[in-house]
C-alpha cells in the first residue's frame, strides 16, 4: 500500500492541495479539537476526584474524528460511532450539557444513567447511534441503517468508526462483507491508534495494513495520516461522495496514536515504550493544525489562547450543572425494556420502589472500574 495520504506534514507545513473550506468551517474543526482536549482534561479531573467513574481519553486521535465528522451532512447522515470519537460530537454541536449528563449518569441523561460514561446516544443535531461496549457491533448496524436509506430512497450515508483492534471482531467481518455485496452507502473509518488496550498492532494482525483488509470484501481501502485533519477530511469526503452517489462503501484507515491510557483507569507505562509517546508528541494533531491555521491567517496566538480559555470554562461550567442534577428515578430501571411495560416489570418496579422508599438506609455506593 502507499504511504498514508497527507496535506499538512508533521511540522505543520502544507505539502498537499488543501480542500476548499470556509474559514468558519476550519475554525469549527479547530474548536472541536480544542474542546475535546478540554473535555478530556475535565473528565480526567472528575474521575481522579471520584465524581465520575470512567472516561476515555481522546488525546492524539482528534484529527481523525474531526476530519471524518466534517465530511458529513447532519441533515441526512448518521454516525454509528466508536467510543473514542468525542471530537465528532463537538464538531456537530451535540449538546455539551447532554454529554456531561451522560458522564454523570444523572436524571437528564438520554440513557437515564443506564450506561457507563462515554456511551452517548443522541438524535440531534445529527443521528449519533447509541454507543455499545461490545466492540465492532456497530459496523453491521451501520450497514443496516445505510441499506434502509437506500430502500427508503433517502439521500443519507452512514459513517461508522472503530478501532484497529475492532477489525478482529465479528462485526467487522460481517459488516464489511455485506456492504461489499450490497454496495451499501456507508463509510468505514478505522481509527488505527496502534493499540487495543495493551495489544499492539503486530499482535492484532499480520496484514500489511488495516486498509488492505478491504480487499477481502471488494471494498477500496485508503490510508490517511490520521493526525492531519485536512487529509482525513479529504479522504472521508471523497468516500462520502462515492457512497452517496451509489458507488458503495470505502474502508479508510487513519493512522494515529493513542497519546495516553486506554481509559482513565489504565496505566500505559506498563506496556507502552516511553520513546513512542515522545515520537508521536511531535505529530500532535492540534499543534499541527494550529500552525497551519496561523500560517493561513485564520488564527493568531491570541485568538487561539482565547478559544482555549473559553472552552475550558465552558467544560467546567457544564460539568457543574450536570453534577448538580439528581440521579435518575428508581422507575428508570424498569422503563424502556419494552415500549410498553409488561406486568412482571410493573410488579418488580412497585416492589423495588416500596423496598427503598420505606427506609433511609444508604446503599453501598462504592465500586471502581478497573479499566
Amino acid at each position: 500500500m502507499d504511504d498514508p495520504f497527507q496535506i499538512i506534514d508533521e511540522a505543520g507545513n502544507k505539502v498537499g492541495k488543501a480542500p476548499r473550506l470556509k474559514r468558519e468551517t476550519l475554525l469549527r474543526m479547530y474548536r472541536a479539537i480544542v474542546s475535546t482536549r478540554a473535555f478530556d482534561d475535565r473528565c480526567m479531573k472528575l474521575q481522579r476526584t471520584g465524581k465520575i467513574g470512567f472516561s476515555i481519553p481522546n488525546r492524539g486521535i482528534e484529527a481523525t474524528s474531526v476530519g471524518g465528522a466534517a465530511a458529513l451532512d447532519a441533515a441526512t447522515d448518521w454516525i454509528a460511532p466508536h467510543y473514542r470519537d468525542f471530537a465528532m460530537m463537538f464538531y456537530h454541536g451535540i449538546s455539551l450539557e447532554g454529554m456531561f449528563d451522560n458522564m454523570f449518569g444523572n436524571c437528564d441523561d438520554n440513557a437515564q444513567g443506564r450506561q457507563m460514561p462515554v456511551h452517548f446516544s443522541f438524535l440531534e443535531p445529527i443521528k449519533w447511534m447509541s454507543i455499545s461496549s461490545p466492540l465492532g457491533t456497530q459496523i453491521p448496524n451501520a450497514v443496516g441503517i445505510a441499506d434502509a436509506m437506500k430502500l427508503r430512497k433517502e439521500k443519507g450515508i452512514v459513517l461508522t468508526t472503530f478501532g484497529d483492534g475492532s477489525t478482529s471482531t465479528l462485526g467487522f467481518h460481517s459488516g464489511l462483507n455485506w456492504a461489499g455485496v450490497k454496495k451499501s452507502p456507508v463509510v468505514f473509518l478505522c481509527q488505527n491508534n496502534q493499540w487495543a488496550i495493551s495489544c499492539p498492532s503486530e499482535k492484532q494482525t499480520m496484514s500489511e495494513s488495516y486498509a488492505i483488509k478491504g480487499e477481502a470484501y471488494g471494498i477500496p481501502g485508503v490510508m490517511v495520516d490520521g493526525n492531519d485533519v485536512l487529509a482525513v477530511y479529504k479522504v472521508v469526503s471523497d468516500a462520502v461522495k462515492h457512497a452517496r452517489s451509489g458507488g458503495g462503501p470505502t474502508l479508510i484507515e487513519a493512522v494515529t496514536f493513542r497519546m495516553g491510557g486506554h481509559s482513565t483507569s489504565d496505566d500505559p507505562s506498563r506496556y507502552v515504550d516511553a520513546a513512542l509517546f515522545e515520537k508521536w508528541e511531535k505529530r500532535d494533531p492540534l499543534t499541527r493544525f494550529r500552525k497551519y491555521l496561523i500560517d493561513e491567517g485564520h488564527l493568531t496566538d491570541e485568538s487561539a489562547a482565547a478559544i482555549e480559555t473559553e472552552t475550558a470554562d465552558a467544560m467546567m461550567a457544564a460539568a457543574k450543572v450536570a453534577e448538580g442534577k439528581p440521579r435518575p428515578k428508581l422507575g428508570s430501571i424498569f422503563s424502556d425494556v419494552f415500549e410498553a411495560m409488561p406486568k412482571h416489570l410493573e410488579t418488580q418496579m412497585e416492589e423495588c420502589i416500596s423496598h427503598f422508599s420505606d427506609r433511609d438506609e444508604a446503599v453501598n455506593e462504592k465500586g471502581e472500574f478497573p479499566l
Partner: protein
Amino acid sequence: MVQAINDGLRSIMKEDESVLVMGEDVGPKGGVFLATENLTKEFGEDRCFDTPLSEDGIIGVGIGMAMNGMKPVCEIQFQDFIFPAFDQIVSEAAKMRYRSGGQYTVPMTIRTPYGGGIRGGLYHSQSGEAYFAHTPGLKVVIPSTPYDAKGLLIASINDPDPVLFMEPKALYRAFRQEVPEGVYEVELSKTREVTPGGDVAVFCYGAMVPVCTEAAKRVKESRNKDVRVVDLRTLMPLDEESVLQAARDCGRVVIVHEAPRFCGYGAELSALIAEHAIETIEAPIKRVAGFDTPFPNTLENYYLPDARRVLDAIEEVLDF
C-alpha cells in the same frame, strides 16, 4: 403451518412496505422449508433476498434497518445456527431501547425453526427458548397451530420491540387448518386454553401442544380426569396470571418442553408457581422435558417427550 407462515409474510408485506424478509436461501429457493416461497418473485429482490452466510450479519444488519424505519423479518435457517448472532441479539437488539432511553428502537422479527422431528441430530433439533426468555428486552413467541402462526407472526412483525419467533419444525406439515385471508393479529402475551379442565394443568408450547393434547385425551379416557392443556404461545412476556390461575384451579401441574430440563423454560414456570401459588399445590410440580444431553439423532424419538411420558407424569401427579 409453513403455508400459514408464508401467507402471513405475504399478507403483511402487501400491506406494509417497510416489511422485508432476509436470510440464507430465502430468495429463489424459497427457504429450506419453503416458508418464504415465491416472496422474491412477488415482491422483488429488495423485499426478500438471500444474504451472505453470516448470522451475525443478518441480525446486525437487520438491527440497523429496524433502527431506520424498516421492519425486517430475519430468518435464521435453523435455530441451532443462531449462536453466531447471539452477541448481536443479546447485546444490541435486546438492549438498544434501554441503553438509548428509547431514542433508538429495534422493531425486528427473527424467525427460526426449532426443535426435533426431522432427524436432525445435534445441530438441527435444538430448542433454545430459555436463552432468549432469560434476556431482558427480547420477546419470545412460539405458535402451535397454523392460525396462531400467522396471527402471532403478524403481531410480532408489528410489535415495536425485537421478537424471536420460533417455529416448531415438527409441526410445519403436521396438520392442515384453514386460516383467514389477509392480515390479522393474535395478541401477544395471551395463553390459549387448548382443552378445558380442572384436575391437572399442563403447560406447553410449540410441538409439545399436540403431544400434551393427546395425553390429555388418554387421561380422559382412562381415568375420566379433565386436563387443562395451556398453550403458552408467548414465552416472554409471559401471561403469568393465566398460568397461576390454571395452577390454582387444578392444584396439580405438569410442564412439558423439548429443551433440556436443567435451567429450561419449565423451571421458570415451576418457580413462578412455587413462589405465588404453592399453597394451592397438592402434588410435586412435574417437568417432562428433553434430557440434559445434546440432542441425539438415531434415538431422537426416545429423547423427545411423547404422549406416554406426559401421560405418566399426569398420572403421577394425580396419584400423589
